[in-house]
Every structure is written in C-alpha cells, then in structure tokens.
C-alpha cells in the first residue's frame, strides 16, 4: 500500500526536486557566504521548511536581536498558510498521526500538489500526501545542506532555473481553471494580488492580498455558490 502510494506520489514531485535543489542550494550557499556554518541551513530547512522565510531569516540573523519584530515579520510572510489550512480541513480529516506531519510540512508546493492532484481510487490518499510532503521536505533539506557545505565552491550557469516553481504554479493554476465552470474565484485571486502588488510593493503585498481575497469571496458568495463546480 505504501509502495504504491510512493510510486504515485513521486512523479508529482519531480519538478519540485529541480526547483528545491536549485533554490535550496542557493539558500545554503547564501548562508555559507554570509558566514554561517552548514548546520544553520540544515537545521532551518528541517524545522522551518519554508523557502521565502528562510531567505529572509539570513538578514534577520545578521542584524540586531529583535524578537518581537521577527515574530511579526514571520507571521506576515507565512500568513498564507492559514488559507492552506482552511482549504485542507476536510482533506486531512481521519489521517491519524500522519496529519501532524502533513500540517507541519505544508509548504506552498506540498499544499499545491496535495490540494489538486487526482489521486487514483486504489491509492491510499493519506500515504500519497505523506510521501509528497516527505519527498519535498527531503529535497529542500538535502539541497540546503549540500549548498551550505559546498558554499561558494559551486559555479554553474543555472540562471533562470528558479522559473521551474513559477511554471509549476502556472500549471496548477491552469488545472484548477479547467476544472471550474465559472472563474470568479480565480479572478478574485489574480485581481486582488495584482492590485495589492502595485499598491504595496513586492515585500508587503501578501497580507493585503489575502484580506482582499477573503472580502471578495465573502461578497461574491451567492454567485460563486450558484455557479457551483467548487472542488
């Protein structure tokens, strides 16, 4: 049962392997050249397991100790996970102990796959999601650690490889789009984010976007539910 779930889960994680190894190595190298031992990226990739925050944490660790400011920053960068949790409330039900790890490891990429993948009937859903999360966690951890050890020894022309993550989210967005009859929710997500990005800038548009999305979904609840087709 587990082996079958693993075999089904693995192909979904291949693009994430490419992306995480590249970004994880970059992160490890960045920490290394910033003067940190490889233990830092290793521990942080295992415990935080969230790329954008870990990059930010480098500058936090290099500046003055400011616990409260750090905490507020962390909540703002990571607030989108609240959405993931709300979307996965039903899907994670009855997963037993695995549920704890599924929530712990719910980064953008794990959430995206677990939320949208068409898991065949004869594959155990719990183990499928478990292996997706575990593989992603392993890719990120190994990439960050190797980058931290090798540091600036690595020279490569992989400029643009990070686009693999963008491409993956575009594909997942498209898949979701094709599943829906009406696209109110997708429009609300796109429009809120673009407008907030223009208004608030790249570093602080996520929280206002989330507020706009919730407001939009609440305001449009009747037509959205009437259109149906919500998965």
């Amino acid at each position: 049962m587990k082996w079958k779930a693993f075999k089904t889960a693995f192909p979904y994680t291949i693009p994430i392997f490419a992306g995480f190894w590249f970004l994880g190595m970059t992160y490890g190298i960045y920490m290394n050249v910033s003067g940190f031992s490889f233990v830092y990226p290793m521990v942080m990739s295992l415990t935080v397991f969230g790329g954008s925050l870990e990059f930010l944490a480098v500058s936090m660790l290099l500046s003055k100790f400011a616990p409260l400011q750090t905490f507020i920053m962390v909540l703002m960068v990571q607030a989108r996970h609240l959405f993931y949790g709300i979307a996965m409330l039903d899907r994670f039900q009855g997963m037993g102990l695995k549920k704890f790890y599924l929530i712990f490891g719910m980064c953008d990429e794990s959430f995206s796959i677990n939320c949208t993948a068409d898991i065949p009937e004869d594959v155990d859903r719990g183990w499928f999601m478990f292996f997706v999360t575990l593989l992603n966690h392993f890719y990120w951890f190994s990439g960050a650690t190797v980058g931290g050890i090798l540091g600036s020894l690595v020279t490569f022309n992989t400029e643009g490889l990070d686009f693999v993550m963008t491409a993956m989210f575009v594909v997942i967005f498209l898949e979701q789009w094709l599943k829906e009859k009406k696209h109110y929710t997708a429009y609300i997500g796109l429009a809120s984010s673009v407008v907030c990005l223009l208004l608030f800038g790249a570093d602080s548009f996520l929280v206002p976007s989330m507020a706009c999305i919730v407001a939009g979904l609440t305001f449009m609840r009747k037509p959205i539910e009437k259109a149906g087709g919500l998965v």
Partner: protein
Amino acid sequence: MTIEQQIITIGICVLGTMLTRFLPFLVFSSKKPTPEYVRYLGRALPAAIFGMLVVYCLRNMEVFSGNHGLPELIAICLVAALHLWKRQMLLSIAGGTICYMFLVQTIF
C-alpha cells in the same frame, strides 16, 4: 547576535510558521462542526490561492523597466500552450523552464 539570540530567532521562525500552519486545524477541530462559512472558504480558496501564488512568483518582475517581463511572459505562454495541448504536467513545466533559461541567458 550571540548564539543564544540566534537560537531564539530561529525558534521564533519555527514557532511563527507552525502557528500559521496549525492554527486552522486547532480552531476548527473535528469534534465540533466547522461553520458553513469557513467550509465555503475552504472550497472557494484554492483557485484564488493559486492565482496569488503565480503573482507571488512574479513579484520581482520588471514590468516598467529592464526587459519588461518579456521572458516571463513568453515562457508562461509556452507553459500554458504546452499544457492545453498535451496536458502533461512535467512536459509543460520542463518546456517552460528550458525556454525561460534560454531567454534570460542568451537573449535578454
């Protein structure tokens, strides 16, 4: 920063992250029924989230200067075209990424 302060800082990163990941599951436990409004949000959110994540990935794109985001635009069109044509996730992602790398390394 002393080593203790570094450990506390990293601890705050872990704590804050886990708070955002676990909070919905703590607030809406399986013992009492989840409010209808939250269940609606759970169903309506994914498409909106993926729209937000695409924009998030492109947040540092230079639309008004530099290459005007042309490599991103071209590569995303290719991803979409490949995906609508073959519906093969890995093919669409690989095709778009190779195209993007080629564009930023040689043309732009």
